[in-house]
């Protein structure tokens, strides 16, 4: 890999540095669910469904003041190049935890005491940015389920590739030798960041630039999320 990936601000797939991959969102894709969404973030594909508010099971997990969130993040065995063994893995447990925390304060959980809201995010095709695609889908699924929220949560990663600060890295870009990847989830309406993870090697200055770039990305994504919801309700009333 002696050839540079990014030349004159143009990336291998023709995108500019601050451009997200093509994002397609469809709300209401699982008939049985209370809310659902399908997201294609570049070549990453995710389906998310929401059930609830419903009775808590097992009951001792009930909270008399608010609903509890039960989040599942799962990669389907054939979603990755090397088959993923089904079942418990630490990465999925961690992602479910941070996603749950990213959504917790955004949903008006206190309106549904003693109940549970189940959010399931299933990765169908994995190609970089599965967690941000999953959160973007879950947020639309929650809205589709009619669950009251302070706004839509939008999610994207930004990072560094060959010294450039770039939005929404592809797998190829993530593999660059100096690459860092910083996924963020944001209440785009206010700019409040509710999920942030990073690993790599970066200065404070670079971190600031990268986080600022996710802000732009999330605002772009929020528009597409809103449109997907409007499209679904327009179709229902037509």
């Amino acid at each position, binding site marked *: 890999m002696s050839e540079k990936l990014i030349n004159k601000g143009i990336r291998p797939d023709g995108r500019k540095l601050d451009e997200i991959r093509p994002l397609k969102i469809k709300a209401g894709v699982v008939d049985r669910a209370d809310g659902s969404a399908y997201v294609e973030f570049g070549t990453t594909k995710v389906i998310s469904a929401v059930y609830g508010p419903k009775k808590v099971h097992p009951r001792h997990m009930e909270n008399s003041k608010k609903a509890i969130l039960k989040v599942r993040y799962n990669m389907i065995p054939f979603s990755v190049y090397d088959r993923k063994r089904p079942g418990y893995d630490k990465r999925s447990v961690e992602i479910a*935890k*941070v996603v749950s925390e990213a959504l917790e304060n955004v949903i008006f959980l206190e309106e549904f005491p003693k109940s549970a809201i189940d959010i399931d995010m299933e990765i169908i095709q994995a190609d970089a940015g599965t967690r941000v695609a999953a959160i973007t889908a879950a947020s639309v699924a929650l809205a589709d389920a009619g669950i009251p929220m302070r706004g839509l949560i939008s999610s994207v990663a930004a990072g560094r590739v060959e010294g450039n600060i770039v939005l929404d890295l592809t797998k190829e870009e993530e593999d660059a030798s100096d690459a860092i990847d910083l996924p963020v989830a944001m209440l785009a309406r206010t700019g409040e960041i*509710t999920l*942030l993870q990073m*690993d*790599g090697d970066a200065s404070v200055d670079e*971190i600031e630039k990268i986080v600022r770039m996710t802000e732009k990305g999330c605002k772009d994504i929020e528009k597409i999320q809103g449109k997907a919801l409007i499209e679904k309700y327009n179709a229902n009333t037509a």
Partner: protein
Amino acid sequence: MTAKLTKDYIVNQIKRNIRGDDRKLDEMRELTIERGVSANAEGSARVKLGKTEVIAGIKMDLAEPYPDSQDKGVLTSSAEFLPLAAPEFEAGRPGEVEVELGRVVDRGIREAEVIDFKKLCIVEGEKVWRVFMDIVVINHDGNLMDASGLAAMAAILDAKMPTIDKDYKIDYNKREKPLPLTTIALPITVMKCGNKLIIDTTADEEEAIDTRLTVTTNESGNISSMQKGGPGGFTVEEIVEICKIAGKKTDELIKKHFKSKKN
């Protein structure tokens, strides 16, 4: 469990820059690091941060390298809350808090390339050293993330590599060289309470406030890992401020408690 009234009291006090133990918001508790707490381990350390106590240990064996890094040693870590560490801890499969703790400490050390993994390669594509980094929480009085990171780093610095003969048989009784290291990296966790930022929280404080950002910084001041936790959110400005606090605290801790590994 901390009563609701106590929680409100703690929050109100923090908003006035007052903490139960008279510390400043950006002041850490007394830290002691003791090395070599378990003789069978290649390296080990006990960290006491106030009343929080964590032990970390390093064990090593030989393994095959990962397919995507044929010339590098392997790091495997775990974190466990021992049932004796707090009334709410129970034995069993690690819960999400333990999983996150282990993974955040692991990433901070791995991504900072604290251990020079290339030097742990014996036969490329076939045999490399595997480093097990296990963290156990002995007493939980808050800030397990930073205490675990300190313990892990101290255990790595304490470690001596076992020797191997020509048939690759490991002699654990003959430990000679230290682990090849390139830098020191430590996590600092900053929590948010209203518009106040606070470090090294106690268990009581963590019952009252819950939004945090953990930032791992290395000796040259660069960041190797970040993880936000808890239900609340941060502004971009707060994130930058927290990175600066973490860098400053890490620098102070390294100067006071560790010997530099730079070059």
